[in-house]
């Protein structure tokens, strides 16, 4: 018997079997009350299982939409939190300075403007990683804006096209972020350790300051790109470099491999600060 014939015979037998069993079950149901209930229970269990699976599949395919909705909601909530922290319980202000679109918000001090964006491409496996996001000059993104999330600094916008922006990832060994241990602690520069996906090194912390392992590291706000008090990670082991400063291992909060949505942040005073520095 050839392969095709075998398959056909198998399908044919299965079809006959199913038909005959359905007929037998039908007769059983119509002739026994208990069997009727039993068959109904079985059928309901089967329906429930099938519908449950269908719903799960449907839910899985709607996850992308759900994620986008949650990211938007998260972005709005983050804006409200910034507002509460800076000015008290007032609703977030929709600014028009950065992009002149409703998708941009500003904090209450008006120093920073925020915009939600989705990552189009991200590299994680080289020493010089990059990010491409789906917002460009048309949406109001400018170079030297920061890319952040609620759990850390992701990178800096380097180049902008009409609809996309290219950013240098924090996971570049030559990119540093001004960071502080605790919200009032010493300030140093945070740099990716170049090895671990969640590892960074906090340098230039004076060695006379006591360091506790497990302290949270925040952005200092001294940079003209990133706002202060964004949690970045927790401190770990430390060692003294050249007898003068600590180098502290930091475990980052953000999982770069699971990143999808980010916030682009722009310091509105960058130009003013730059001109002031150049005048001096």
């Amino acid at each position: 018997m050839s392969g095709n014939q075998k398959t056909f015979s198998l399908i044919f037998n299965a079809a006959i079997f199913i038909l005959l069993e359905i007929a037998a079950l039908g007769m059983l149901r119509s002739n026994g009350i208990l069997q009727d209930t039993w068959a109904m229970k079985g059928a309901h269990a089967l329906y429930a299982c099938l519908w449950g699976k269908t719903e799960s599949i449907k839910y899985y395919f709607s996850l992308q939409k759900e994620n986008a909705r949650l990211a938007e909601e998260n972005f709005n909530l983050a804006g409200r939190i910034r507002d509460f922290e800076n000015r008290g319980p007032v609703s977030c202000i929709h600014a028009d300075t950065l992009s002149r679109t409703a998708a941009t918000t500003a904090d209450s001090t008006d120093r920073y403007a925020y915009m939600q964006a989705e990552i189009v491409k991200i590299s994680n496996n080289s020493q010089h990683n990059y990010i491409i996001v789906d917002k460009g000059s048309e949406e109001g993104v400018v170079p030297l804006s920061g890319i952040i999330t609620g759990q850390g600094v992701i990178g800096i916008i380097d180049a902008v096209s009409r609809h996309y922006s290219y950013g240098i990832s924090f996971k570049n060994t030559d990119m540093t972020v001004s960071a502080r241990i605790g919200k009032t602690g010493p300030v140093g520069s945070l740099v990716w350790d170049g090895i671990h996906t969640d590892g960074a090194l906090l340098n230039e912390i004076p060695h006379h300051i006591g360091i506790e392992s497990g302290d949270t590291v925040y952005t200092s706000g001294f940079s003209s790109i990133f706002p202060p008090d964004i949690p970045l990670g927790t401190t770990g082991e430390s060692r003294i470099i050249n007898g003068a400063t600590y180098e502290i291992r930091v475990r980052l909060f953000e999982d770069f491999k699971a990143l999808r949505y980010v916030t682009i942040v722009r310091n509105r005073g960058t130009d003013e600060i730059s001109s002031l520095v150049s005048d001096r």
Partner: protein
Amino acid sequence: MKTNRNFTVTYILLVIAQMVICNYFRISPYVFITILPAMVLCIPLKVSTAASMLIAFGTGLAVDVLAEGIIGLNTLALVPVALIRQPVLKAVMGDELMEKGNPFGSRTAGIGKVMLCVSVAYAVFLAIYVLADGAGVRPFRFNILRFAASCACDVILAMLAIHVLNPSDR
């Protein structure tokens, strides 16, 4: 031709015997006496699986309708036996016996192999029969006891049915 006619007549007589058993030989609620799976196993090997399923369906339905009981119960349990008949025989008897088209019987196959085939067929039949008859209201222990007791009784009776149905065994 004569062998075929003999088989058909014997088969029909055994169906009538099964009806009599169902109506008058109710020994215990734990024991269900049946020779139907053995009869289905004895259907000649040249009969295809689809045809043997139809024969099993007809046989089960006849017993269900003409003997006291719930219509559909024997039918439901007997069709799967016809479905697994050829694969089980092939697996137990081996390709050689199957290719020769030797009839199913202890003289050609050996009593051990026949018992094994019969046990598998009865296990499938009784598992479905006991579950469907209990319809989820009988305790699990009762079902297990009924399955085991029926299996033990029926396998012995099945050897007799095979002996009657198989010309080489007579």
